[in-house]
Structure formats: C-alpha cells, structure tokens
C-alpha cells in the first residue's frame, strides 16, 4: 500500500517531546481599532461605525430592492428563504477582527450554505470593537476549532491583480465588503 511505503520512506515515527515555543516579543499598537480600520481600507473594505445595529441601518448602506440574507438571526423581519444560487447581500457576524491586516474571523457551522460567503455580491459583517486582536498569533490563540466545520479569515473583498498587476476587486467572491463596527 502506498501509505505504508511512503511513511516508512520518511522514517521511524518519533513523537516530539514538546511543542514549539511560539512566543515572539513585540510592541503593541497604540490604537488597535484605528490600525484595524486603516488596514481594512488598504484591503479594499469599507468601515461603518454604528452605535447599535438594526436592519434599516444596514439596508441604508446598500442599494434598494436588494435581497438580504441574515445569518445572524437578529433581524427576523427580512429573513428570506435561501433558494437560488445567487444572492445580493449576506449579513454575517464576525467572531473577532485582526488589527494588523484588517481581517475578520468567520466561523461556519453549516446552518447556512457555505456558498453564501462567495456567491453574495456584498457582505455586511458585524464586528464588535471590543473583539479586535492585534496579530494573527493572538487571533489563533483565541479560536476554538472544536465546533467549526469551516472557518475563514476574510480581509476585504475578493481581488486579483493577475492582469499586469492592476488591482481589480470582485474577482470571484464578494465585490464589496462592509464592516459594521459597533
């Protein structure tokens, strides 16, 4: 069997005695919320600061007559049936954000189709200011993979620069990504 041949080619099985020490000294950011906002803009995302959240606020940032799907179950009035394969706007709540790169962490446990994330034209992502970490290292320290089936960091909308290095947004996934920062 190829499996055993490959494994024996690699060598004996040795169990590492201890984990790698991953600590790295670094200076903290002066203002991580400001850094987050700045990095998100660099990544092509939009930041909207709000005090509290309701569906009409979110709606007001998008064109009228757009079909909105809410995966947070916060806004019962607009819950649309997920039928077709193309969606307009999807509302998602992010677990946390990362200041150094403007990314947000999204955990999926398959209550909704995964395709919502990439097939939607626009993503409206809700993030609480208190939930921003400085770096990816801090971020991974705070993810519990136990109940996740699919999870991702999203940093701005989908993009490409494959034609002569010119940056274009909306290569395949969402063309727009708006973070509602509470």
């Amino acid at each position: 069997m190829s499996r055993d041949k490959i494994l024996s080619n690699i060598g004996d099985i040795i169990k590492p005695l201890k984990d790698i020490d991953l600590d790295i000294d670094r200076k903290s950011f002066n203002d991580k919320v400001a850094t987050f906002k700045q990095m998100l803009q660099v990544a092509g995302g939009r930041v909207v600061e709000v005090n509290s959240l309701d569906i009409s606020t979110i709606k007001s940032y998008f064109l009228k007559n757009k079909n909105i799907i809410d995966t947070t179950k916060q806004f019962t009035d607009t819950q649309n049936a997920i039928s077709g394969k193309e969606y307009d706007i999807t509302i998602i709540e992010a677990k946390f954000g990362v200041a150094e790169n403007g990314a947000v962490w999204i955990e999926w446990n398959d209550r909704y189709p995964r395709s919502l994330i990439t097939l939607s034209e626009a993503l409206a992502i809700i993030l609480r200011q208190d939930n921003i970490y400085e770096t990816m290292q801090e971020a991974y320290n705070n993810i519990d993979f136990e109940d996740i089936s699919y999870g991702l960091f999203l940093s701005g909308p989908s993009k490409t620069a494959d034609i002569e290095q010119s940056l274009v947004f909306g290569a395949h996934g969402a063309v727009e990504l708006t973070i509602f920062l509470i």
Partner: protein
Amino acid sequence: MMVNHAQNAQKFLSDKKMAKWHNEALWFVRQKRDNAVKSIDEWEALRQKAKEIKSHTLRYLRYYLQEFEKNAISNGIEVYWASDANECNEIVYKLIKQEDGKKVVKSKSMLTEECGLNPYLEQRGIEVTDTDLGERIVQLANQHPSHIVLPAIHLKKEQISSIFHDKMGTQKGNSDPEYLTKEARKDLRKKFLDADVAITGVNFALAKEGAITVCTNEGNADLGASIPNLHIACMGLEKVIPSAQELGVFTRVLARSATGQAITAYTSHFKKPKPNARLCVVIVDNGRSSMLHSNIFNALSCIRCGACMNTCPVYRRSGGHSYESVVPGPIGSVLNTQKNIDKYASLPFACSLCASCDNVCPVKIDLHNRLYIQRQEAIKHPEFKTKREILKLSAKIMQNPKLFAALMNIYRRVGKYIPNWIINSKYNIWAKHREMPQPAPKSFAQIYKEMQNEQR
C-alpha cells in the same frame, strides 16, 4: 535532453520591451514586499520562527502526517496516499468517476501542475477549468504558468485581451484590466455553478485539528468548494504543520512575502465536509520522502510565496518559462536539480550567487548555498564538457604562479596586436556580452616589487 537555461533566456531577452517590463514588474512586487515587511518590527524573529516550525515538522514528519490523517478521518474527511504523480492522478480520476463527474473547477495548486493532472483528466473526457484568473489566462492561451503566484506575469494586457477575444468573445482591442476581469468573472461564474467536482490545493494541513488551510485572494477555492458535492484537495506531504497555532506565524509571513499584502483576502480552514458532501484529501509523495534524506531537505520547508523569484536578477531577466519546470526561480532550480540532474543541470548556473533569495525567503532556506553545492555535481554533465575542460585548464594555470606570470607576460606583449575580431569573436564565449580587457602595461607583482625597491 538537458534544459538549456542560457539559451532560453536569450530568447526571452530578444523582446527587449517585454523583458524590461517583466523585470520592472517583478521588482515592483519585491518593493511592495519590502514595504510590508518594514511595518513589522519583529519580522526577523517571525522568519526565524517560521523556519524553526518547518524544521521541527520535517524532523517529526511521520508523526504529524499520521496525526493529521487520524484527526482528519474523525472529522469525516477521506484521506488518500499517492506515491507518485500517476497514482495521484488515478486517485483523483477514480473519485471523480464515483460521483459521475464531468466538469471540474480547480483552484491554484502547483502540485497538480507537477502531476500533470489537467491533461490526464482531459484525456479521459473530463473538463477541467482553472479558476484562478492568472491560471485561467494561461489555460486559455494553451501555456503553463511562468510564476507560482503570478501565473500570467509573462503576458501583457493586450495579449490577454486578444486571448479573451478569441476564446470568450470579449470586445476586440479592449484591454482594460477591470473589463477583462469582469468578463472572466462572468464566464467562470457559469463554470462554478455547473461544476460536479472542485479541486483545490492545500497551503497548510493542520495535524492537531485534522483540517486543511487554503489561501487565495480571489475566493475561487472557497467558491469552488462550496457548490459541488465532492471537494478534492491535493497536497504534497510536506504541507503538514503541527497545529493551527503555527498558522499564527505563517499567515503573518506568507502574503507579505508574496505580494506585499498583510494577508490574503481569504484564509480558509476546511475541517469537515459540507453536509451530505465529501471532502477528500490526497497526500502526495512524488519524490519528497527521498528528498527528505538528501542534502536539500530544507527546500521542503518552502511555502511557495514566490519571493525568491521576484527578487532574483536571473529570473526577472529570463522569465519563468526559461526554467522549463513547474516551479521556476531559485527554489525551482534547487528542487528540479535534485529530482533530475540530467535534465536540469543548467539551472544551478542560472544564478549569480548574490543570495538575495536567501534574504527574502520567509522560511530562511539557504537557496544560493544549495545551488552552489549542486553546481559541483551539475558540472559533470556531458553537455558541460568543454566548459569543464577550460575551467580545469585555467585552474592548473592559476595554481602555478610561474606559468601564470609567463603567460600573462606574453599576453601583455602581444595582446594589443591581436585584432578585435579575433579576440572578441563568437568562439570566445567569455566575450559574448563584454569585451576582453586590454592588458595593463605592468603586472601587480612587478609594480609591487618596484615600489619595494624605491623604498629601500
């Protein structure tokens, strides 16, 4: 047949305008990387950690692979093992057949390029669509990627416009990147919605979590994998790392090194298949396990960021295709020479030993050292017989100070009378891109001796 890199480079350089553009475009990417790196004070510490994690994992590779397998299976992922390219292709084909699949969407995976998966499947009647825009462009142009991160960097937008016009019917002569990208998006969206199977690569496999991580900017891996019932992910066996904790280091260095972005737009972790669907991981060896026991084992730490290509003065001026291999540039030279020295003996010489690659590599592979060491073997290739004999002869002369001085004296006396067309003729390969220097009137030893006499 040995790949003749120098000859290929010459061909590339004959289009002067394109060569200049290529050089500058890649240097621009290198500068973006520098800016991104400068914003991180602890950059060097991060590189050091990244290197340590990789060395650690390679040392305990068997343990981590088995851990990954065990945990992935308990997450509902199917795990397959392939000894070589052919077995990988067979496994993938069998999986596709099980689902009665006919249409495949594939996101970027250097491994499947290495295995020649596309032609294998196409010969068996499967339609494979590369969905990364750069890869789609080269696929439509019937070419291969010339760079691992920027597959179509060897093409200008006018060329892409005419390829799209021929294959997708876009407006003739419209080469606006925004327009072309949107047209490709529309065309590929149909392919995504129609696909029966999605194939992706793997950037990292997490042993502890039994999950795989895929990084893209376009979102094509996520979009592909989210629709059909079968997702096949192909990975080289060196892609495993201990756990998600280590991703905290790699996600900080990967995109910064690759394109100067702080992170890729999508960094996705697939831990379980979609409900009622299958997620299959194919772990491929194809020479890697024996490379682990060679003196270039650390080249297996590569995270395929492409930084060594962007910075390489030879790569920038010869283009990715001149290496005639899936992975070009410094890391490609190291890997290919190890795999098949008969074919790739010219690649260790496609290097100025400037070590710029070592300095940008996020996992600190000593690329130029490896190439230097590989030269000692590569020079034995029959194609280099003349070169070898000339070098041997010059070594003999230089090791003998008297003989060397005597020959130089002759050259000093008669050198200036030899006509230029002889001395810089095409047979003197040394004088191909430069002129032979005129001999100085006196040798250094002579001047030194005279000065000593004067002082006395």
